[in-house]
């Protein structure tokens, strides 16, 4: 049986043009296939183009060269079909809307409504993301972790088949991040979307992902792909397993070599 490919990238290159200054090549020749339902984490040194890559997949950055398809269509078409969910490090919640109104914003836009009604999917997600009781609170009244959970709930409200996350817990402390990783896995195991997560946290990458891609330093290329041999569902206890440690060590080594590979190219 052939596997369904959710995200396909061929020859992706992106250059940031700077008037009067040197152009910056962010990505140089990325080829990547992500299977439907797969959880892929992308790690790499700062400035290697991880966020640019995610932006290209989300259709919010037009790449200079190359082709991206989301379920066989260009990102713009995938956006039109509401197949993409997106989460940034900054939850970007609208301060004047309550948690429920923020989570329901994509539904409101999708259905062309002026106001939300009694949509069950919003309440289900709020419950799943442990925000029950805070529906009527405003973002300024929430903790950082709760805001991140609300942003993820908002990204999932249209049931996208591809969820793109750019360091969603990057601004939170380690303990909260560990807790949110577990909650994220619980909710995603029920929904099974294809997930691509950009992170600088190797432990997080190994804990949540099926596969970890290591990018080289700028300009970013895929240096190595590390399969994480941990079963699902995953619980906190796997972080003490030999397989977890082995994957973390392999990624650390890959990152070191990847950075050296980039320096070698520069020289």
């Amino acid at each position: 049986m052939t596997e369904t490919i959710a995200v396909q990238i061929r020859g992706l290159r992106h250059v940031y043009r700077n008037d009067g200054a040197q152009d910056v090549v962010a990505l140089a020749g990325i080829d990547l296939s992500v299977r439907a339902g797969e959880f892929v984490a992308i790690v790499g040194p700062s400035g290697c183009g991880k966020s640019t890559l995610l932006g290209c997949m989300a259709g919010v950055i037009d790449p200079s060269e190359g082709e991206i398809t989301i379920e066989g269509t260009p990102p713009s078409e995938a956006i039109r079909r509401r197949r993409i969910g997106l989460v940034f490090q900054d939850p970007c919640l609208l301060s004047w809307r309550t948690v429920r109104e923020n989570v329901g914003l994509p539904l409101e836009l999708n259905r062309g409504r002026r106001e939300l009604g009694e949509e069950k999917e919003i309440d289900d997600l709020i419950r799943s993301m442990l925000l029950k009781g805070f529906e009527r609170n405003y973002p300024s009244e929430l903790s950082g972790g709760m805001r991140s959970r609300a942003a993820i709930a908002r990204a999932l409200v249209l049931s996208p088949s591809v969820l793109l996350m750019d360091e969603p817990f990057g601004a939170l402390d380690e303990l909260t991040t560990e807790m949110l990783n577990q909650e994220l896995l619980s909710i995603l195991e029920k929904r099974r979307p294809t997930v691509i997560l950009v992170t600088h946290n190797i432990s997080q990458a190994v804990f949540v992902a099926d596969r970890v891609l290591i990018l080289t330093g700028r300009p970013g290329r895929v240096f190595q792909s590390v399969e994480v041999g941990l079963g699902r569902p995953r619980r906190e206890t796997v972080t003490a397993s030999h397989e977890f440690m082995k994957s973390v060590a392999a990624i650390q080594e890959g990152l070191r070599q990847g950075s050296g590979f980039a320096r070698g190219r520069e020289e």
Partner: protein
Amino acid sequence: MSKPPVAQVVKEKALLPLCFALVLLLIWQLVVSTFRVPEYLFPSPLRIGRELITDRAYLLIHGTVTILEALGGLVIAVASGFLLGTVFAMSSSLERMVLPYAVATQSVPIVATAPLLILWLGPGISSKIVMAALICFFPMVVSTSRGLRAPGREQLALMRVFGATSWEVFWKLRLPTSIKYVLVGMQTSAALAMIGAVVAEYAGADRGLGYVIMQATYRLDTPLLFAGIFVAAFGGLVLFLVIVFVGQTALGHYRD
């Protein structure tokens, strides 16, 4: 969250400025009394206070006229400034084309513009309202334009991924984000509107605080002149505080 009682708000927000004003007035009174400064040069706060009480009806009538002129100008400036600010926010090329001239008009001293407005619109209230509107217009354009452009790259990217149309991005993101910026523009403009109205009254009027100050100057009635200045400052402060109060009570989380 429950709102704090009025007495507590007054204690927290008004007590310090009031104490500061009291100290300043005390020093002023002491300096004038000690050095026996003539009243026509620099009247004492007590003398000005007496003037404010004895001429209260006169000052109230003229003060009300000026505040209404300022308020009228402010309303016009907010509406027209918001429209042009929106156009600027939507079209960078139009902003680049028009903005230098808008800045140039701001550099023209209002004392030079006021006689022209009297000439064109007559000595009635309309020339004063237009003067107040003109002086507030530019801050409103800038604050609106800045507010509508305030949403960050990531917020705009999210709206795009959610499938929002340009109109929805404007209505559900840009416009609500701009509210706190517009509010700041209105607070700045409140004081400016009073200046615009008073300067226009200077150029030619038969009522208003500008007229009172002018008449007092001709008669060398310095206590009345100061009383007029005090009422103008108080009017500007009241306009400012009304805008702050409306912003705090009506706009709620739009200010966050």
